């Protein structure tokens, strides 16, 4: 279990990015964190990853305090961040340097197969499309079999079709080992498709505003009315978090509202 206990972060320039954020996340749960800009979503994710230390409060994974990057926690960024001087296969095997070569090759080959890029094993990252590169990044984060996988707006730089593909693909991969997923996103659709629970954050300073359980079976039909209902409740919560007047959502929804920025 991942426990966040009153995690706060004040940057040296005085910005109060995160205030006493507490949550408990079960092993294997999929969490989406959503909120207006400046609500501390990324700050929170970086604190869990151990990349930035929280000013106060604690992050514990299975009773172990996290203050620096941890073997059981993987992260995927908005950009693929592949190492340009390594082939696709070597990029995927980057976190497996401690394993004997044969075992590493085996795992990499399996991962390549799993993300459908077996034919790109020897390609350079520059030769990949954006979606392919992000799939390599996902494979790289997943091969060491982390217990927790953090995703910082992983699909926001991709086009709509590729984004959908990768969302489905991510769920498919998740089912293999069922790590905990914590996904920061701007996209309400993405949050409702993927998450068991959506955490809505409120900005200045960033703090938890609302939690919405998405009690929908998988695979989820993006066009079902139940899906729409959950989307509407997330959107409503988001509007409230920003002190906006909540519009009448029973009126027909235009496609423009599917994305929330």
């Amino acid at each position: 279990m991942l426990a966040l206990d009153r995690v706060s972060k004040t940057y040296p320039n005085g910005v109060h990015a995160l205030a006493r954020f507490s949550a408990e996340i079960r092993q294997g749960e999929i969490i989406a964190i959503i909120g207006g800009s400046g609500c501390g979503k990324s700050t929170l994710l970086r604190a869990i990853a151990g990349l930035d230390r929280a000013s106060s409060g604690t992050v514990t994974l299975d009773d172990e305090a996290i203050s620096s990057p941890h073997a059981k926690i993987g992260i995927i960024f908005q950009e693929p961040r592949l190492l340009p001087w390594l082939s696709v296969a070597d990029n995927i095997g980057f976190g497996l340097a401690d394993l004997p070569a044969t075992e590493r090759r085996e795992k990499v080959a399996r991962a390549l197969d799993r993300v459908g890029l077996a034919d790109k094993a020897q390609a350079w990252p520059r030769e990949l499309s954006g979606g392919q590169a992000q799939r390599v990044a996902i494979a790289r984060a997943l091969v060491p079999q982390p217990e927790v996988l953090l995703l910082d707006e992983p699909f926001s730089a991709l086009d709509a079709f590729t984004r959908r593909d990768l969302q489905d693909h991510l769920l498919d991969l998740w089912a293999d080992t069922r790590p905990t997923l914590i996904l920061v996103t701007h996209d309400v659709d993405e949050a409702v498709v993927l998450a068991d629970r959506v955490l809505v954050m409120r900005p200045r300073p960033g703090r938890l505003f609302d939690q919405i359980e998405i009690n929908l079976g998988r695979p989820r039909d993006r066009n079902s009315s139940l899906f729409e209902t959950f989307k509407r409740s997330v959107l409503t919560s988001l509007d409230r978090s920003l002190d906006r007047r909540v519009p009448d959502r029973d009126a027909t929804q235009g496609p423009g509202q599917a994305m929330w920025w």
Partner: protein
Amino acid sequence: MISDAPVLQQSSDTAESAAAPSRLSRYARPMLGVLLPVTLALGWELVVWSGWSNGRLVPPPSRIFTTITELARSGELVRHIAATLWRVSLGFAFGVVAGTLLGAISGYWSLARRLLDPTVQALRAIPSLAWVPLFILWLGIFETSKIALIAVGVFFPVYLGVMGAILSVDRKIVEVGRTFRLSGFAMIRRILLPAVLPAYVVSLRVGLGLGWMFVVAAELIGASEGLGYLLLDGQQLGKPAQILAAIVIFAILGKLTDWLIEIAAGPFLRWQDAFGRAKGA
């Protein structure tokens, strides 16, 4: 863009006939660059041969070539080339080692950069030839002062190249290393070294160019052998063919050693190469 034409056209079956002239131009284009110097050389050869000029101050190519073969036959040439190569190699080696070490320290460790870099930059502002009298006083007129001068010339571009390359390593890539818990040595070996390598190779090539420049300066100052000595000897004895012969050999050696660095670095920079090819194809 025009260079892509043959590749593109070969892949389509209708363009077979059109491929012929562009294939010709693929070989013809590098030749264009040779056209001017060759024409000038042949022209001058003709002028001297026909007696319009005696070619005493500007010897024709044939006379330069004869001078080179004569020097080669007497074994003089090998001795001079060996002396110069030895000086460049040693000076280059010392300059590269010092530049790499100090550049790496300044790039990696910001306290060292604040401490060290202003001094190095101030020293860099001194025209390197200004060191010559001092080096001769300190190190004597023989090899040591020459090698020191070459090393100074090589040092600065390498130092700047290494420091700049380390400072400009993408923070996001370093973060990937951190998430995989690389630290200290592993971070340097697996992230920093490959990331700085392209810029490092460039700085080595610039450094080598300066090394060749400074070996001439060093040998003009006082030497009994070396290609720079050939230059000076040719001037003092009024043998322009010998001066031009030495210049031609400098050009060949400079290009050759530069090419050696390129070849040696090739396997490590294939990922960049692939980028160029991918864009071209």
